[in-house]
């Protein structure tokens, strides 16, 4: 059977599994819809959190980004894992003890204010929609590359599946689907990684293979060979970065505290039975995440090595089939600048902007480009997002591995999309409709409102999938800046600073958010030509600005709270209450 038939079979089987789980775990109450009845086992919750967390960006883009960034890719590896330490030590146990349904619930109650609740809802919706756009684009890429389905139809199929289990099952359906999706995606990630590690180094554990010697008789280790090869082509060594130390620091910090402030991650810790389970569950979540995150740097390094080996100085007429098939969908472009019929790979952009393809092909069958050329030696454009998806083909692995990777990419994108849709719909039905507009709404009506909001959110997310903006990982990175600058400080201060009051929290969130949005919008939309280190404040890029946004939030919140009113006694009691694990509200049996 060919790869495409196998992919259809794998995708069909996994989608049937997800829908089957959805039907089995329908939600009957808002409690089940919002927090799965609060009875999820910590290990199951750890897996669900890992799938919730690892998005299309983690699965599809990250190893590709590391492959091309080398050491600089560290910001994503540490940034997207280190946040769990903060989450486990500073937030998760206390939010579980608080025992409500949503992040705005905590902020609204702790700061005794519906204005604070609304600011939190606005941040939450902005973060979640920014993030979801990347997921839908991921679904589109997988469908169009592996199944030859137009991106639009791919997104619509994905939406239909998420609709089934998110609208029917709510958090309960999503949780158990995510457990299944974790198993699919981690298997799909590890199998090709192990194959490739054995092929290149003979070591079956990619984490060790990354440090092992290459089996080509050169006696060099993988990283040494990469360093030498890249330097000879004119690149900086793989193990050195090109970003400044302060920027690496800032981006890592922004991603870490952004992780800890992401509503769809935090809300997962509302679903376990006890405070101690919330702590344990964060540990399992990070363990399951680390399996992929410690494999990714190996995948990235192997992919770069393979890419250089197969592409550089190879005549176009003899280049591997995958090069041509990605060229066909426009994610690879080649311009024979020196007219020798061979592909040369060097630093710099081969031509201005993204590749624009003419109607006809050149005599050798390659696609004609319409871009203005640059004056460096590089002749290849390659989209970073393709590295993981192309890896099995690059390494000439069997067809079923290729099909598996497609199913894994879809699992990663869909599980994250579902988690995000749930927090959006929950905030709308619970925080806006029930707690603000229509107090005293019955549980049944609130559940209906939650389902309708989920359906509407899916349609909006689908729109972003069909008309995407930016790269998968780049878009996602900004959601972290927003979360770091708005929600994280407000939650942290709510737990650890008894004197933090309404005015302080709102002033902090608004100033942190406004500053971060302004900085990102200025460099990304208003004046993109100024987006370089000499114009950045303190040399910090828009990706890392969430660190300063969060710092501003803390400073403003502290100053304002110390010069305004005192915190009422019942709120002080609440803070005392959430600090002690004893007396946690037990879940309902189901």
């Amino acid at each position, binding site marked *: 059977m060919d790869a495409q038939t196998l992919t259809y079979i794998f995708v069909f089987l996994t989608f049937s599994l997800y829908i089957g789980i959805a039907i089995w775990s329908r939600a009957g109450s808002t409690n089940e819809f919002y927090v799965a009845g609060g009875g999820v086992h910590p290990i199951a919750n750890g897996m669900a959190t890992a799938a919730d967390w690892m998005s299309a960006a983690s699965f599809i883009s990250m190893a590709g980004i590391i492959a091309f960034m080398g050491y600089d890719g560290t910001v994503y*590896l*540490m940034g997207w894992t280190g946040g769990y330490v903060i989450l486990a030590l500073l937030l998760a146990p206390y939010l579980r003890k608080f025992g409500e349904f949503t992040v705005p619930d905590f902020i609204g109650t702790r700061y005794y204010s519906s204005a604070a609740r609304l600011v939190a809802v606005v941040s939450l919706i902005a973060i979640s929609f920014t993030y979801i756009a990347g997921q839908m684009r991921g679904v589109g890429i997988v469908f169009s590359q592996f199944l030859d389905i137009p991106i639009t139809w791919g997104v619509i199929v994905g939406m239909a599946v998420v609709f089934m289990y998110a609208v029917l099952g709510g958090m309960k359906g999503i949780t158990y689907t995510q457990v299944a999706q974790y198993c699919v995606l981690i298997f799909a990630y590890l199998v090709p990684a192990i194959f490739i590690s054995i092929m290149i180094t003979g070591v079956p554990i990619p984490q060790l293979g990354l*440090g092992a010697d290459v089996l080509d008789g050169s006696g060099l280790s993988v990283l040494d060979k990469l360093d030498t090869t890249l330097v000879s082509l004119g690149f900086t060594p793989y*193990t050195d970065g090109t970003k400044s130390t302060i920027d690496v620091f800032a981006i890592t910090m922004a991603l870490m505290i952004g992780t800890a402030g992401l509503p769809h991650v935090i809300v997962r810790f509302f679903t376990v039975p006890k405070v101690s389970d919330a702590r344990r569950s964060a540990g399992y979540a990070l363990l399951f995440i680390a399996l992929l995150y410690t494999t990714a740097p190996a995948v990235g390094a192997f992919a770069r090595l393979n890419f250089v080996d197969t592409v550089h100085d190879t005549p176009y007429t003899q280049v591997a089939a995958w090069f041509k098939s990605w060229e066909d969908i426009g994610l690879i472009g080649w311009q024979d600048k020196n007219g020798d019929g061979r592909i040369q790979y060097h630093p710099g952009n081969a031509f201005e902007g993204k590749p624009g393809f003419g109607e006809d092909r050149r005599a050798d069958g390659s696609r004609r480009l319409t871009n203005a050329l640059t004056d460096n030696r590089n002749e290849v454009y390659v989209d970073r997002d393709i590295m993981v998806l192309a890896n099995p083909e690059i390494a000439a692995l069997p067809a079923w591995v290729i099909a598996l990777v497609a199913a894994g990419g879809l699992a990663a994108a869909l599980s994250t999309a579902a988690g995000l849709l749930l927090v959006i719909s929950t905030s709308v039905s619970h925080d806006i409709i029930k707690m603000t507009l229509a107090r005293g709404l019955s549980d049944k009506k609130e559940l209906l409102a939650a389902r309708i909001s989920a359906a509407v959110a899916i349609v909006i997310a689908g729109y972003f999938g069909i008309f995407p903006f930016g790269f998968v990982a780049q878009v996602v990175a900004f959601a972290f800046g927003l979360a770091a600058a708005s929600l994280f400080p407000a939650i942290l201060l709510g737990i650890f600073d008894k004197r933090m009051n309404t005015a302080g929290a709102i002033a902090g969130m608004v100033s942190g958010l406004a500053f971060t949005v302004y900085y990102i919008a200025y460099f990304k939309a208003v004046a993109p030509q100024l987006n370089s280190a000499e114009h950045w404040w303190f040399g910090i890029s828009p990706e890392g600005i969430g660190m300063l946004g969060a710092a501003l939030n803390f400073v403003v919140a502290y100053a304002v709270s110390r010069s305004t009113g005192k915190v009422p006694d019942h709120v002080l009691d609440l803070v005392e209450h959430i600090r002690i694990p004893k007396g946690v509200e037990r879940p309902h049996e189901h």
Partner: protein
Amino acid sequence: MTGEENNNHAYWRANIRLMLVLLAIWFTVSFGFGILLVDWLNQFQFFGFKFGFWWAQQGSIYVFVILIFVYTARMKRIDREYGVSDDEGDA
């Protein structure tokens, strides 16, 4: 202050102490070894890796996982010690 309040405050202080120690380790392995000291550590070799690079792309992540499990286990003991555990058996 009542006895219970005193006990709860002592519990909170023990919690904060443990938290600060673990966060110091968290900061050292990631921002310290992986970023600020990476160039200096790269002069040492570690299982075929430059040592700083290994901390940045492998080691720090392993330590993160260990930190959370250590926190979970130590907190369970502290919870019991101060009689504030959420385990019904201990109440």
